[in-house]
């Protein structure tokens, strides 16, 4: 059955309207990041005035003793470091749950699935008290280590291991005399690799998105990720900081958007969606 011209036109028009809604804030941010403070008010909001992007970025990098570049570096450390850690830890745990029928496996998995249902920010307060006692308050580890705990990541890794790693292959490796660790790192990881990239991306976004944890853990501005810094500047609400907030938001978001576009083939939500049995 071929769709009629009318249904094609209506569908495309609707999708176009939604696309405009989605892109409007991004477009506004791009245009505004190029404007001087005065132009923000005096020129059309959705079109360029005089292009001052270079000046804005230059000022951004020097503002408050050059703290912005530090925030960017910190963000990369937290998001990339935390996501790599979470991926490795989750992959190992998910693989164990998938391939070893040890006693109590069902119970362990049930606890992990229950943990998925608990909103992590609600652990923020006790975590704060705990980190104080561990001496991790106001340190990078205080953000990194809790970021590596991802019950949902373990669940996904288990699904991936079930789907991508044939048990026969592991048996063959064992008959060849390979140890369990070697089998995991040479056979299983290779087979799970595409899925692990997806897992990494999910964790990266989760940490990049998590404002609550660094807000609770970090006092020292020099350790902040970019989100914390922008929120502080934004709350100052003076004209000068307003320009810095806009340019700062633009500079931090654009690389991530570009990375998304470049890595789009790895955004496979199907494994997450298709195999949830409720």
């Amino acid at each position: 059955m071929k769709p009629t011209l009318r249904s094609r036109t209506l569908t495309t028009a609707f999708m176009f309207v939604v696309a405009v809604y989605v892109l409007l804030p991004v477009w506004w941010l791009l245009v505004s990041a190029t404007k001087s403070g005065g132009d923000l008010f005096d020129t059309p909001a959705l079109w360029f005035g005089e292009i001052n992007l270079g000046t804005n970025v230059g000022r951004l990098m020097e503002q408050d003793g050059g703290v912005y570049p530090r925030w960017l570096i910190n963000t990369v450390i937290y998001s990339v470091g935390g996501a790599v850690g979470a991926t490795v830890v989750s992959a190992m745990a998910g693989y164990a749950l998938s391939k070893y029928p040890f006693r109590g496996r069902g119970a362990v998995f049930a606890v992990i699935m229950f943990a998925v249902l608990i909103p992590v920010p609600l652990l923020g307060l006790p975590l704060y008290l705990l980190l104080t006692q561990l001496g991790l308050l106001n340190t990078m580890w205080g953000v990194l280590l809790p970021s590596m705990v991802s019950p949902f990541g373990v669940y996904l890794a288990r699904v991936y291991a079930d789907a991508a790693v044939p048990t026969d292959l592991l048996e063959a490796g064992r008959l060849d005399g390979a140890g369990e660790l070697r089998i995991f790192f040479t056979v299983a990881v290779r087979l799970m690799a595409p899925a692990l990239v997806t897992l990494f991306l999910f964790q990266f976004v989760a940490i990049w998105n998590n404002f609550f944890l660094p807000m609770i853990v970090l006092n020292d501005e020099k350790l902040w990720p970019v989100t914390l810094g922008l929120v502080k500047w934004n709350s100052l609400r003076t004209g000068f900081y307003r320009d810095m907030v806009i340019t700062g938001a633009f500079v931090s978001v654009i690389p991530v958007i570009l990375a998304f576009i470049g890595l789009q083939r790895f955004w496979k939500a199907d494994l997450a969606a298709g195999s949830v049995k409720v």
Partner: protein
Amino acid sequence: MATIQLEAEQRRTAPPPRRRGPTGNRAAGIFLAPFAVLFVVFFLVPIAYAVNESFYQVKRSGLGFGTPERVFAGLDNFTAVFADGSFMNGIGRLLLFGLVQVPIMLGLALVLALLLDSASARFKRVFRLTYFLPYAVPGVIAAIVWSFLYTPRISPLADLVPFDFLSDSVVLWSMANIVTWTWVGFNMLVIYAALQSIPTSLYEAAELDGAGGWKTAWYVKVPLVRPSLVLTGVFSIIGTLQLFNEPMVLSRITPAVGKDYTPLMRSLQVALDNNDYGQGTAIALMLAVFAAGLSYLFIRLSAWLTARGVNP
């Protein structure tokens, strides 16, 4: 001597050791250990800590000049949560928010996924990627950008509408818009991925039976992607109950959003500003119980509806 003899006997007669036995268990233990340690320290211990803390209160004797004393308070903190007007107002706001925003967001996500999956759509790849882009923007940055778009004179929108985006009666829906903008594409992608895994032979059968595009979508596709709708529904419920980033950003720029606007904000305010950890953790625990309970109810409800043949 006799036991040694016996062991030797057994060794001779026992079948060759299986790798699956103790070796397998040890390997499983090694693979699970890093996650287990982190999970216990940064997940279970905080919960236990919170549960313990929530049973205590700090009492100051006399006129408040004596040394504060930490006393066991039983369930007092929990009953106090329900007597706390700020908390109850916050819960009311979240329920209203969730009842309106979650169906709108998931409905839009479902429609977009179905359209992307239909034969009528053009430029599918471009549209799919476009809808997904806001997922790259952290909630607080989305809230900051939208807060500019809600500000008169800077915004191209604020002058077009007859109301103030940041006023008392509108600000909750301004927040709902930010959350919808951020998450609709992600939810769409999850549902779309499920649609893609339906074998096309099912559509052909529906077509032979004379079902049009809309009928096929509603009677064939939607029931088949139910698991993905349940998943996105559960995530949305949990996300709503922990609503924090958007109201926190807006609370710094408009008086319409107080520092106790949502229960999670209230929990922080009580614990950190009032130094009442017992009460603050009690609020957080109640929220966690609500979140788990609501998610569970939602899963049961949708299973029950399906069993009775109700869509979706």
